């Protein structure tokens, strides 16, 4: 009987992978076709790429806050660290070679992870709002450091911003990096790591009592999440020709936080959908409002934000997941039933 379930499970898993792979490949093909047919112009292509990069960064924060429950208001700092690390490698050494691009992305990811590790050991002892305010402070420190970076190393550009990074990250790279990140995060969430994170989010002391090494798992979540922010930053540096410290300040951190919370804490699907919608909403408003009303963009953005959170305080996709993303489970089908526990607590 058990063997029967095992084969059933394995078969279901194979079907799932085939379906998921097929869907992603056709999505990619469709977008490629649209852009070849000229239906996606250069401008919208840039918006789309920005949306995907934001998704990667937001998935990082989703691990840290949505799953492990560690409130971070400094996510953009790691995004910036990744962008500047990868960017400076590209600017100084690479001359646009693909190998260097990949190495630089790796370096950006590792730099963000390493700094997250060093920062995380002391500050992850703090709880909720205190952790938030400490990471916010770290974000300000990173921004000031970036603004003064040209004093230590002139090519970093300091307050005038950094230019001259070879623009080798195209849609193909960004799309597949996003897909890779998505699969990685979904599998992590379904693994014992994910369960440990969830238990810490729900009740850290109970998790500790049950023998979960909470410090270790909190740091793992923080390092991984910040590493993803670093990866997103690296891609950003190679896609958009101008880096400036103000693109990585706490307003950007709030952007990531909004995405994760509005998507519904503890929902990967919600994070992805909200990240993409959010970026398109911001750009879409620019088009819809036209030149005359461009000043109203910030007001409308704020009103949409307030109205959304008033109508759905638990997030748009709270507790709902697109099951295709997650490894098949046994008959109980734990995934998708997380709703009750995924109620967001500060």
């Amino acid at each position, binding site marked *: 009987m058990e063997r029967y379930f095992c084969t059933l499970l394995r078969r279901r898993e194979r079907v799932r992978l085939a379906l998921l792979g097929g869907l992603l490949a056709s999505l990619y093909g469709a977008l490629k076709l649209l852009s070849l047919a000229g239906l996606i112009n250069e401008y919208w292509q840039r918006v789309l790429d920005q949306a995907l990069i934001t998704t990667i960064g937001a998935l990082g924060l989703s691990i840290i806050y949505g799953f492990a429950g560690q409130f971070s208001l400094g996510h953009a700092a790691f995004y910036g660290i990744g962008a500047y690390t990868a960017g400076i490698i590209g600017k100084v050494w690479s001359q646009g070679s693909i190998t260097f691009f990949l190495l630089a992305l790796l370096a950006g990811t590792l730099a963000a992870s390493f700094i997250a590790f060093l920062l995380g050991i002391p500050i992850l002892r*703090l709880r909720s709002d205190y952790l938030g305010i400490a990471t916010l402070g770290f974000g300000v420190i990173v921004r000031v450091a970036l603004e003064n970076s040209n004093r230590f190393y002139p090519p970093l550009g300091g307050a005038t911003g950094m230019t001259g990074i070879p623009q080798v990250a195209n849609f193909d790279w960004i799309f597949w990096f996003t897909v890779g990140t998505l699969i990685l995060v979904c599998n992590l969430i379904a693994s014992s790591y994910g369960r440990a994170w969830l238990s810490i989010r729900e009740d850290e002391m109970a998790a500790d009592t049950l023998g979960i090494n909470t410090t270790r798992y909190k740091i793992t979540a923080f390092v991984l999440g910040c590493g993803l922010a670093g990866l997103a930053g690296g891609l950003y540096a190679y896609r958009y020709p101008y880096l400036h410290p103000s693109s990585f300040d706490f307003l950007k951190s709030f952007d990531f936080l909004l995405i994760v919370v509005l998507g519904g804490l503890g929902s990967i699907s919600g994070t992805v959908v909200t990240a993409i919608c959010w970026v398109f909403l911001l750009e879409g408003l620019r088009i819809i409002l036209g030149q005359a009303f461009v*000043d109203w963009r910030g007001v409308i953005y*704020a009103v949409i934000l307030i109205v959304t*959170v008033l109508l759905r305080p638990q997030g748009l996709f709270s507790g709902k997941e697109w099951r295709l993303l997650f490894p098949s489970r046994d008959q109980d089908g734990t995934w998708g039933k997380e709703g009750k526990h995924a109620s*967001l607590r500060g």
Partner: protein
Amino acid sequence: MERLLEQIINGLQLGFVYALIALGYTMVYGIIKLINFAHGDVFMIGAFIGYFAYTFWGFSLWGAVLIAMILCAVLGVLIERIAYRPLRYAPRIAALISALGVSLFLEYFCSLKFVFGPNFRVVQPPVKQIHWNLGGIPITNIQIIIVAVVILLLLVLQYLVYRTKIGTAMRAVSFDHDAARLMGINVDFIIAFTFALGSALAAAGGVLYTLAYPQIHPFMGIMPGLKAFTAAVLGGIGIIPGAVLGSLIMGQVETLTAAYLTSQMRDAIAFLILIIVLLVRPSGILGRGGPEKV
């Protein structure tokens, strides 16, 4: 030596302005555990109202302070009613996001051309700056006005919170909403009152700020707001003397860094100190960290 004294007095002036903002943060946090990100923008609107009042509407400085306090108190109550009260029983993060939304709304709405406009405005303070030298201490009349007004407001606040019925009710609500309600306290009213009080103090801070730093724009509230919140955390959030102490420390750190290191580093140093204090004493300088409960 003279320079050091001058900087310390500048820091005192800045610290007292921060204290007015920090009090609003700390009271609101104490009572509903919400980081009211819109508070810095209330401070900005207070500064603008003060500027309009004494430049165009013909009020004296005191009239300007008063009218800014009244209008911002109303604004604070409105914000609470519209954006926070519906989320009182929702997850805490929802109210925080709503606060961010309100903050962005106030900033961008005030940047619209028919409101305040997006540009810097240079303010002509209604009080002429006079430099004095009190026994070797260089001081200006504006600094004396700021420090005196803030101390006066602090004394009023202290009296209000610890000596009146409504202050007792505020402390009761911050201790336990449900128990306070059972004792017959109108919790909604007390929370609204706290917002009014905090916003009025921030508005007074805004008007005083324009005297010392006569340049205003719709995004001016972000940094002072963040720093004042940091100051409140530094002193121990939810504790009124803590907010003042934290603000004074923040003011000194900022001016001394700007004077003796570089002015670009002052934000970094201020937040570095915050992180260190949080690590050593997570509940702040005056905070009492109770034992962890299950």
